[in-house]
């Protein structure tokens, strides 16, 4: 069994899939991340991250319908699973907890 640890990039990809809910496929995820984070992302990195997420059971996929824009080719649509949602919430929760534990005096 592979560990369920979520890497930083995987987390970003997972968030992007969640944002694009219903229309999350490779290129869409790339664009989403580039727009949101203002950083350039490789398609291959995204695809292998999606693969890994699928392996960990955090996303599922199905083949979507054809679109004219893609020259009649199908796209694979990803969606976040319940486990994926839990993983994201967990991360958020931990981050929040850590933020809360920072003593006020630190920044001053």
């Amino acid at each position, binding site marked *: 069994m592979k560990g369920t640890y979520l890497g930083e990039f995987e987390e970003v990809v997972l968030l992007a899939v969640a944002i694009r809910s219903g229309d999350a*496929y490779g290129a869409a995820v790339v664009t989403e991340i580039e727009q949101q984070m203002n950083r350039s992302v490789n398609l291959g*990195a995204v*695809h292998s991250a999606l693969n890994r997420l699928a392996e960990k059971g955090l996303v599922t996929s199905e083949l979507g319908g054809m679109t004219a824009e893609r020259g009649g080719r199908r796209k694979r649509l990803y969606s976040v699973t319940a486990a994926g949602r839990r993983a994201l919430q967990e991360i958020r929760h931990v981050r929040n907890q850590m933020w809360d534990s920072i003593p006020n005096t630190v920044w001053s």
Partner: protein
Amino acid sequence: MKITPLLRWLFHPDLVEELESDLDELFQQRVKLMGLRKARWRYLKDALSLVRPSLLKWKPVVYQYNNYPQPTNTTMIRNYVKIAWRNLVRNKSYSAINIVGLSVGMTVAMLIGLWVYDELSFNSYHQNHDRIAQVLENETLENGVQTFSSLPMPLSQELRTKYPNDFKYVVASTAGFEQIIAYQDKKFTKTGNYAEAEFPDLMTLKMIKGTRSGLKDPNSVLLSESVAKALFGDADPLQKAVKIGNKYTVQVTGVYEDLPHNSAFTDVTFVAPIDLLFENKEDRNNWRSSSFDIFTQLNPNSRFDDVSVKIKDLFRKNAEDENRTRSALFLHPMNQWHLYSTFENGVNAGGRIQFVWLFSIIGVFVLLLACINFMNLSTARSQKRAKEVGIRKAIGSQRGQLIGQFFSESFLVVALSFGLSLAFVWFILPYFNEVADKQLVMHWTDARFWIFSIGFSLFTGIVAGSYPALYLSSFQPIKVLKGHGPSLRFNIGRFASIPRKVLVVMQFTVSVTLIIGTIIVFRQIQFAKNRPIGYSREGLINITMNTPEIQGNYDAVRNELLATGVVADMGESSSPITGIWSSANNLDWRGKDPNRAASFGTILVTPDFGKVVGWKIKEGREFSRQFTSDSSTFLLNEAAVKLTGLKNPVGEIIKWHGKNWKVLGVVKDMVMTSPFEPVTPTVFMIDSKERGFNIIHIKLNPTVSVREALPKLEAVFKKINPAAPFEYRFADQEYTKKFAAEERIGTLASIFAILAIFISCLGLFGLSSFMAEQRIKEIGVRKVLGATVPNIVSLLSRDFLLLVFIAFLVASPVAWYTMDKFLQAYKYRIAIEWWVFALTGALAIGIALLTVSFQSIKAALMNPVTSLRSE
């Protein structure tokens, strides 16, 4: 800017469509956003970034393209094992043959492994074993260079003071010999050493009580735990006074842990100061008498070879004796004592290491035989499994998965065999220890034992499973399922059985070689046993004198013993009839080449000795009490006459120690040392100024039974010498002991040979039953058409017998060559006769025939109705 062909080549067909469209979509977006040039650049970067292992075509994981849950690795392996188990249970007889064969092979390999480990770790109990050495002497003599371990006492001091930078310790010690050790009324005969004070440090004795410096006090003794226990029970032994050899009263200053079985000093059960032996201090400085072993430990930065060169001439410079000019000292490292202890012409010629090699090779081969069985049976059954492989492949199994499947079958069989062989080894080990004269144990709690065992099993599994796994998984589904050939069955091909035949030939080659070897070893032993020994062993017993009481009262003891009527005669000598304890190389005679020295065994006897042992006088006459002049005469044995080259030896004068000795007569050769070696040239004398008596020989009255005689003997000895326990040895038993090493090797080799042929026949049995089953319809048809049972048996057996015959042809020269080498080690040896080969060949073919015919007769006797009904 079409990248599709490359993508198609690189990626899974399902992925290509998606990736290509992604690339296109991004490109179009980017053209609008950042212009064509930059978009192209990004397109290229993206395309390149896709080339990563997780997306490539040959990655077998295709999980997201079906809806089945992706099994993880462990579930897959569990599935492999489950299927392997089902296959195992379904084919019970094949599985049994495989498991029994493999577990026998693994048992042999494991036992040999334990044995070899024990041999290789010999002496490792002593902490500094890699820096300890014994000083040996090479002496150039008439009959070649001889190597001696007995050296004069002052040499120890000389080494110590001359080379303080090289030696950490130099310790002179007696070789262990039996002594009476007594505390109050408890008396035991135990083997112990007299040694210099640093002996315990050198040997790193583990002290239980007292310290290693306990020997520094001249009247002290260190006891081993078991001797201390025997003498004192649970009482504290320290400072108690014990008596050794009825002579020396010493105080116990320490108790050390018993030395292990695999140490050269295992029988040193007590250590006493060597100074006890020198009643007058002058003796400690006697360069002429060589009767001590000298052990050394080097300092960390000295090397054995360098020090050997330095000390080479030390002896020559100190000994006044001119004959010592031919001697050279050298160091023999402790790590070589056990396995490399034979010196031929002054050069190390191996020793037990040859047996270690021999047994290792046998172990590997026996294991290999078992692996071959597994391979043969698996591939022989390939027709049966061909369909399975075809279907599996057709529904999507990949070759790697099939290989995994077949390997898990072999690993399962090996795992079961391993468990079984562990049990076998555990059960057999006590008997094995007895045969091999070892104290081997299973190192259950040692992690290394398990790591090694598991590694060994994996190795076996890989060897046994590799060929079937690769062979069976290579079938092409289309050929397998469509079927070829007249029978509409998958035809494996004309040459498919060739490797199998080669393997069978290999198995029988090994078996036949082992059998021939075993027969020759036993014949060699028998030959030496039947060698004429030149004296009469019957009713001859010897008693070691280790107390002074008897020495002064010989005549009284003799008269008293003769008076009991159970003793026919009694004599004394300086060494037992089964050994020569002293030698001289400074004899001079007429016609001797002055530049060469010759070594003779020297034995002091009483005039009755000859009659007691029943030697034969060839020329001249025997010693007699009537002529006082006999005290300056020699008897020579035939070998000694030959060595001197004297034509008419009787009456010749031999000079020795400044005295003229007249040759009184010639004794027929007696085998007193190794029965495998030429008889040692020996001189006998009756002048007790030259040697001391050590052994009493008694010839029992043949009309009295041994059981009756011994108590009477004991009574006499007890009366004269109440301090000593009465201990005797039969000459014939002592003689038999000389064959112990050879017989041990012979017994072990024969057991392995039997197991090897057993495993080979097991394989043959499986193969023949398989063949018979395959041809069951053919046999039915043949019978219906009138074939007789012998016809069919010969039809089925012929091929196998041919293989065994070929194996015999291959094995014969191999066996001849190795056994010729083996026999070279013995001077008194047999010639290799042709009939041994013929016999073994007949035996092998006979056994193979028996094995095969069981199945063929069964097949031939079967009613054709049953086999033909189904079609």
